[in-house]
């Protein structure tokens, strides 16, 4: 199987970039370059002559990349992978993973497909890890805020910790709001009054 493809990954987040490189190298593709700065994009496309460019669907530099693909005298024309919509499943999978791919030299589909499958799988994994991390961080910061609100109530009303929490919860239920929102409002108000 031929695996001598040149792959360019555009990704600002270093950790994420390493993840993608590792996945591609595990898959047998060794000629993988990552660029992080958008300014380097035009030069990288010219100098390295990649076969495939992988870029986050949400990356604003995609517009720059598309322009490179359309200027008349460009030797290399990156073309969005979606051009070939014959493989609807693959396109949908890429979109749901948040990945867009550009094929530069009119590469054959059977050679693109394994690269994309590998990248899609890794993009999914990264997204899952990221959302878990975000959820954990959010939970921790919510808890800190609720603890501060409880502390304020305990001091102001001379009640126990359990009573303070019950008071927050009851207020939240009465007002149809979340406990964290009531706690945040209380802490903000207390800071303003200090």
């Amino acid at each position, binding site marked *: 199987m031929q695996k001598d493809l040149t792959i360019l990954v555009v990704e600002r987040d270093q950790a994420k970039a390493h993840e993608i490189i590792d996945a591609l190298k595990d898959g047998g593709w060794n000629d993988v370059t990552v660029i992080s700065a*958008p*300014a380097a994009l*035009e030069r990288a496309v010219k100098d390295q002559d990649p076969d495939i460019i992988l870029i986050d*669907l*949400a*990356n*604003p*530099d*995609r*517009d*720059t*990349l*598309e*322009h490179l*693909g*359309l200027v*008349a005298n460009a030797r290399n024309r990156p*073309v*969005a992978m*979606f*051009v070939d*919509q014959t493989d609807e499943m693959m*396109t*949908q999978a890429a*979109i749901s993973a948040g990945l*867009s791919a550009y094929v530069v030299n009119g590469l054959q589909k059977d050679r693109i497909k394994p690269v994309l499958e590998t990248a899609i799988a890794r993009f999914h994994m990264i997204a899952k890890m990221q959302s878990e991390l975000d959820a954990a961080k959010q939970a921790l910061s919510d808890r800190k805020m609720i603890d501060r609100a409880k502390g304020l109530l305990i001091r102001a009303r001379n009640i126990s910790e359990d009573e303070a929490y019950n008071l927050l919860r009851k207020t939240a239920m009465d007002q149809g709001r979340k406990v964290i929102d009531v706690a945040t409002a209380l802490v903000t108000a207390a800071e303003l009054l200090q």
Partner: protein
Amino acid sequence: MKATQVRCGYLPLVDCAPLIIAKELKFAEQEGLDLTLVKQPSWSALRDMLAFGQIDFAHMLSPMPVAMSLGLGGMTSAIDVLMVLSVNGTIVGVSDDLDRRMQETGWTNTFSNPVETAEAIFAASTGKIRIGVPFVFSMHRMLLETWLSKAVAGAEDRIEIVTVPPPKMADAVSSGALDMFCVGEPWGSVAVQQSGATLVLPGSKIWQFSPEKVLGVGHNWAAEHPKLCQAMIRAIYKAAFWLDQPENSPLAVEILARSQHLDLPDHAIDPALSGQFVTKLGHTPEQVARFMAFHSGAATFPWRSQASWIADVLSRWHGLDPALSRQTARACFRSDIYRAALTPIGADMPGASEKVEGAMEVPTAVASTLGEMILGPDRFFNGAVFDFGAPPPPK
């Protein structure tokens, strides 16, 4: 009646105001629409989302639906234009360095003279001039090329137009990566504030009435959901009318700044709506008439002649058959749906769906259903006239 959920993609620019007003002032709700606005990170992403049905409507650069319908730029998809969301609103600026060199040639910035400004730009430069635009299929690029190539002979060979995401335009100008840019607000004013750029020309001085953003929709989706399309047109028409009343301008700025959709401060939104521009740091603001229009002069009407004008430029760029391109483009601009949506609510409709572009030097009364319609001015800076009936230039 329960409101129907619809999703509309947009990019956070001041000219998406009609969408935000339609939602926030509940014009959409009155039409039975539960409108969700979905922010997009790039025009490419917005286009993909629309083509794959992740969004129902989209705030698009006016050439995008035509390019997509013609199969240009990677994503072939039949996309229709239901209405124009904003007329004009682009702005051209130069780097601090180019401004200085232009002044050395004896040029002074009046913020209104396309020919003298173009001459100064080329007189002040020896190498290729790098100009940033927001997207390859944009009115910005079309206006720039029209202006520079008609103002100075041989200009095409002396410019290089590149795409730079608008939020990065200021950095690209200060780092020397760009000599010039053409962008929508707030990013022109931001470049003045952040990188000492000088605004030299509003886009309206190149073409006084250019369709800037349009409401795009999938052709097949529109055929399956005629009622939703018409409801959306009515909601935005009312929002555009509201926005164009000068007395509503301060409140509009407040609403746009407070809504979570734009994430921009008041002072970044104000110039585009008030037409008051600080062209260089420390200078007093210049007033620009018709910098951007939402309603007046039938601004929301999807003129098929404008679709043809766009098609001619795309044909030239990509070597397409001009007559076929015009045919496709005209079919994209759905003045038929627009009329069906707005005639029942008594909106004044123009008698024709095409007009000779560039023919009106002053506001001109035209035939319309209520007989109250005033169009124009719509001149091109060089007096060119685009007659939709004349055969397109040969390939």
